[in-house]
């Protein structure tokens, strides 16, 4: 597998009222093509910021992000970022269908219908986002992202504001989509179990100013199942390791 994404010594400092805040001190990370990598860390450590830098939405203060060898300075072609506030990210004046088509230059209604179908919302084409539940809205956002046929999908805590069962449901959906499309996924989450369940590798960030503390390979075999895999000893071992590190006092 080739290296798709390289994050080299990325740092980010913000100007706040009280002075300068160093969110990221130095991040180094490599993601291979077709991989599923999760990024976990204490809350407020800058995970979302890192993802937005990789997405080209926020400039890094120093360091660089390379996508297939080319530097990322603006949202690059083939990379889509999925927002944490998914309900806010959908346009309330557009139907579900039109929302999915939004990211495309040419409407391509059949392609969008296909992805809507993939996320199980084919029947809700003509509805409006505010008529759907939280989980369904997130599916629309996912369909919209996939319709753009990206090579890299960046998920920013996509399931943090849905209930536990819906989250399991959406986990399964993401894994299924990943298996079928073979795209590279980078997931930021505060949910350790979700990270272990979904990914090939888990990167653990330190508290702010953040660095990569360690990247853990995931020995859990695929295909994975929602209940059984979570009882697998390899799942539990990685989960144990991650939680212990996260819960350590500073």
């Amino acid at each position, binding site marked *: 597998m080739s290296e798709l994404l390289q994050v080299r010594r990325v740092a980010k400092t913000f100007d706040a009222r009280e002075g300068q805040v160093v969110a990221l001190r130095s991040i180094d990370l490599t993601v291979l093509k077709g991989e599923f990598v999760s990024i976990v860390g204490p809350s407020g450590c800058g995970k979302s910021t890192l993802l937005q830098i990789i*997405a080209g*939405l926020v400039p890094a203060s120093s360091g660089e992000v390379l996508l297939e060898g080319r530097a990322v300075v603006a*949202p690059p*072609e083939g*990379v*889509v*970022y999925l*927002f944490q*506030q998914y*309900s*806010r*990210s959908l*346009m*309330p*004046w557009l139907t579900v269908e039109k929302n999915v088509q*939004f*990211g*495309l230059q040419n409407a391509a209604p059949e392609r969008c219908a296909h992805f809507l179908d993939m996320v199980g919302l084919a029947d809700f084409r003509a509805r*409006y986002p*505010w008529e759907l539940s939280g989980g369904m809205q997130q599916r629309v956002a996912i369909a919209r992202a996939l319709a*753009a046929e990206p090579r890299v999908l960046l998920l920013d805590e996509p399931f943090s504001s849905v209930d536990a069962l819906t989250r399991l449901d959406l986990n399964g959906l993401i894994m299924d989509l990943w298996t079928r499309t073979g795209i590279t996924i980078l997931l930021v989450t505060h949910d350790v179990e979700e990270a272990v369940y979904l990914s090939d590798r888990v990167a653990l960030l330190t508290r702010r100013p953040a660095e990569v503390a360690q990247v853990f390979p995931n020995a859990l075999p695929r295909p994975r199942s929602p209940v059984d895999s979570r009882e697998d000893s390899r799942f539990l071992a990685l989960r144990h390791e991650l939680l212990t590190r996260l819960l350590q006092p500073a």
Partner: protein
Amino acid sequence: MFTFLRVHHLMTGMQLRGFAVVIGLLLLWELSVRTGAVRSESWPAISTILHALAGGFRTEGWGAVFGSSLYRMTAGFLLAAVVGISLGLLLGASERLHRIVNPTLEIVRVLPGPALIPPLIFLLGVDDALKIAVIAIAAVFPILLNTIAGVKAADPVHLLVARTFRVPRRRVLLEIQLPSALPYVFAGCRISLGIALIVTVVTEMLAGSAGVGYYIVSMQYAMRASEMYAAIILLSAIGYLINRLFLAVEQRSIRWAHRVEAHV
């Protein structure tokens, strides 16, 4: 029968008192003339006014008077809407342009409208062109200012979505900033419509030969108070109806804005 029951249910004791106040005042007015307490040509009884009001309908006089005004009002309003919305979109989207044009806008805005009329008479004459121009200038501001505010109120998350999908600038303006601004634009249009009506009347009062404003002033000069008051009443009623109608259109067109608020 059901309507009667509903009306009956609506009127509580307190609300009845409110309506009683209105009826009481109207009665007082009528009596003040009938008993001779106020003896003035300029203070006609309500019955006389209503008589004149009805008379205008019978002879279709009101049609001519108001038709002329409504035509100019609509023309001025539409002009204001086109300029206000397009300029508002531009200025809302471009901070630089906004800063350049803003002081000029602020000065024109605080200038008392009637003061524009004499200068414009010299530049545009006394015909419809003048009046429509004055109406448009007065009515453009609520639409313009609201559109600018509406564009600036576009959800930053929506703008980020546009960036991650690399949506071109033109599409962002038309497909995100314009729809986001729509609730504001509608509210601005509703206010503008009211202003357009008033300014139409004012221009006719100052430089007119037709329309409601001219009619009211003519009746004043001729000391025909009943006709004058009748016209004012009808004018108020029409203004009220236009406002209501527009509200109904507004609420149906942007259902999603209210729904979003309810959901959040």
